[in-house]
């Protein structure tokens, strides 16, 4: 048995919202006790209360999650200021949660601690890892490196960085009954789980090609010999940069044709540096990107189609969807179309849950290395035989 249920409420009142969500989840569970769950909520809920209510309903549940920039589910589709919960009730798959703290001090160590904690709960070999780390205190690439080291490079990691309401102020992560910041929550799956994933972006590099000439990890000081901030402000304007820098990520070229994206999450007026969600190599060729709503939607569809094509079973039981916050912002009122478009390719009753993140984690191709990226739509399909 691998039963997945979803609840979703747009009631801004935390007490009412979680009550509504639990009620929605309990109905199809028909008495089954879920072992694990994923919780995605808007930033201004009473998260402690929500977690408490979930623990009250399902004591000891292996639950992780985080705050978001928008929530998705098969119940209310795309929403903002809402909370959505996905629960797993299964005897075919083992699901264990772990948490790593102090990601800002030592991201790799935090990641290792999280994996170690989850692994300690079972002798089974993990098949898949989900994670929703803090996006603002640490570096996504370093966290991912730590996760890969602990799990082994061949175990796929799927996830997204916890987000807020575009204030880039603070994000929260959830682990069991705890509301945390600066942490790395993980959920390990082992046993009979079948799954597949897909990733697509839709962003296009449009500026002239430039070269990163001075960088320290994820802090870029100079591009083409000029201050990184001046480089960005040249293209976006001073005001435009201050309010929109997260949208116009840099395409970082692996070679002449292939690129991945790095989005800024801060800047320093004095040094003229721009900080990114994760590392950019020195001497990397970069271009400022832009996207049309049409291309974004088309990429979401591609991501799902890729996952469906790779799915090893007959039909998936559930889908996890992680999209970038910048996609939601550009899509505007069309953000609801992103889910609706994806839904047309999925079985009608398939439980779906997801959120808009500040950076996505997934292998770019099936059986490929897990990578950190921005501006993408990640699809994870799960099920059993």
């Amino acid at each position, binding site marked *: 048995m691998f039963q997945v249920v979803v609840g979703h409420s*747009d*009631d*801004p009142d935390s007490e009412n919202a979680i009550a509504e969500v639990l009620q929605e989840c309990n109905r199809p569970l028909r008495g089954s006790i879920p072992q694990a769950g994923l919780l995605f909520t808007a930033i201004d809920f009473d998260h402690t209360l929500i977690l408490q209510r979930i623990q009250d309903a399902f004591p000891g549940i292996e639950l992780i999650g985080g705050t978001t920039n928008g929530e998705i589910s098969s119940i209310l589709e795309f929403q903002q200021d809402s909370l959505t919960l996905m629960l797993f009730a299964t005897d075919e798959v083992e699901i264990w949660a772990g948490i790593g703290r102090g990601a800002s001090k030592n991201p790799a160590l935090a990641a290792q601690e999280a994996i170690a904690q989850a692994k300690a709960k079972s002798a089974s070999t993990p098949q898949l890892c989900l994670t929703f780390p803090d996006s603002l205190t640490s570096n996504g690439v370093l966290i991912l490196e730590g996760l890969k080291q602990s799990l082994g490079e061949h175990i796929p990691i799927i996830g997204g960085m916890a987000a807020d309401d575009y204030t880039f102020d603070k994000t929260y992560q959830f682990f069991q009954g705890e509301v945390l910041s600066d942490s790395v929550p993980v959920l390990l799956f082992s046993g009979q789980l079948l799954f597949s994933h897909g990733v697509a972006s839709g962003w296009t590099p449009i*500026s*002239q090609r430039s070269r990163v000439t001075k960088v320290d990890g994820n802090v870029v000081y100079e591009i083409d010999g000029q201050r990184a901030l001046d480089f960005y402000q*040249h293209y976006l304007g001073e005001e*435009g*940069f201050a309010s929109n820098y997260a949208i116009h990520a840099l395409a970082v070229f692996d070679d002449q044709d292939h690129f991945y994206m790095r989005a800024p999450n801060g800047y320093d007026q004095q040094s003229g540096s721009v900080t990114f969600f994760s590392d950019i190599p020195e001497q990397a060729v970069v271009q400022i990107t832009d996207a049309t709503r049409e291309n974004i939607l088309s990429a979401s569809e591609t991501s799902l189609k890729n996952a469906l094509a790779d799915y090893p079973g007959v039909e998936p039981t559930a889908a996890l969807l992680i999209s970038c916050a910048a996609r939601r*912002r550009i899509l505007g009122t069309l953000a609801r179309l992103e889910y609706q478009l994806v839904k047309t390719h999925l079985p009608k009753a398939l439980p779906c849950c997801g959120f808009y993140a500040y950076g996505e984690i997934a292998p770019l191709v099936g059986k490929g290395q897990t990578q950190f990226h921005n501006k993408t739509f990640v699809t994870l399909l799960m099920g059993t035989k």
Partner: protein
Amino acid sequence: MNNQDNFIQIQLEKTNRILQKKLERCQNERCQLESDIATKEFLLKKVICELEESQTDLQQRSQDLENTLNSLHNMQAQMIQSEKMSALGQMVAGIAHEINNPVSFIYGNLSHLSQYTHDLLRLVQLYHRYFPNPPAEIQTERKTIDLEFLEKDAIMVLQSMNIGTDRIRDIVLSLRNFSRLDESEFKAVDIHEGIDNTLMILQHRLKATDKSPEIQVIRDYGNLSNVECYAGQVNQVFMNILVNAIDALGEFNAKRTYQEIRDNPCRITIRTSVVDSQWVKIAIADNGSGIPESIQKQIFNPFFTTKPVGKGTGMGMAISYQIITEKHRGKLEFFSTPGEGTEFVVQIPMQQQVSKVL
């Protein structure tokens, strides 16, 4: 009823909360959207500027490449032409030299031979006067050789030989002048001499033959001082223009009846004049069929030819244009009226200022 009211109350309160939240968000997102659009516009304008710059740059580079390619083609063609001309010049100079020596023997000895002949004839006449009745054998021989005719004709043969050797010497001199192998620098030369030398070389094409009627050449020379130029190259220009004129007249004749040719014989008119204190003008006109308007713009283009494959390289006029305009800072233009003929006009400064040329 109370329960239902209570439920409706709860639903209304929830809807109210949601609407308030959505209103708040709506306001925020409207501002955000305006800011997004402004930024996007800014970015797009920048990128359009960059693309325009890049396009201009590419067009410039493409033009540069095209120019370089054309220059290379020209250079290659000129090198071939120049090699040909150099080889031709050397051959002409060689032939002229080889002919010059034996002709000099003949020319140098002709005056002696003439003197000896006159002396001998005078002696024969003296014999005749003092021995009017010679022996029969001598009288028979006199009749056999027709001494009276021989006395007259020998003088004429010698005169004819003199004229012939003079003509050979003139031709040799023209060939040497035309090739001008020794002149790689500017030199003040008589332009008329260059034209005459060129006409001399082309004499065989100007004279009437079984296949073509004579082409009249009208020389209308002005009073020109010597002109500073690369004489060999300027002669090459005259040669190219004259050969084209002769070819054009040949083609024109091929389309005309005998009567038409008689009524309006082929003619090349060469006029030279002084334009002002610094410039001279040489105009070479034919009375052929003219150059069709459709190809007039291409006349100076490299590789442009109307001649059959193998007959013309298409470089003659292109090189002539370059010789006059670039090497002599002059002008080469033409005026053509279909049905009436074509006139090429060369204008060059009488003195070349080296610094300007460099």
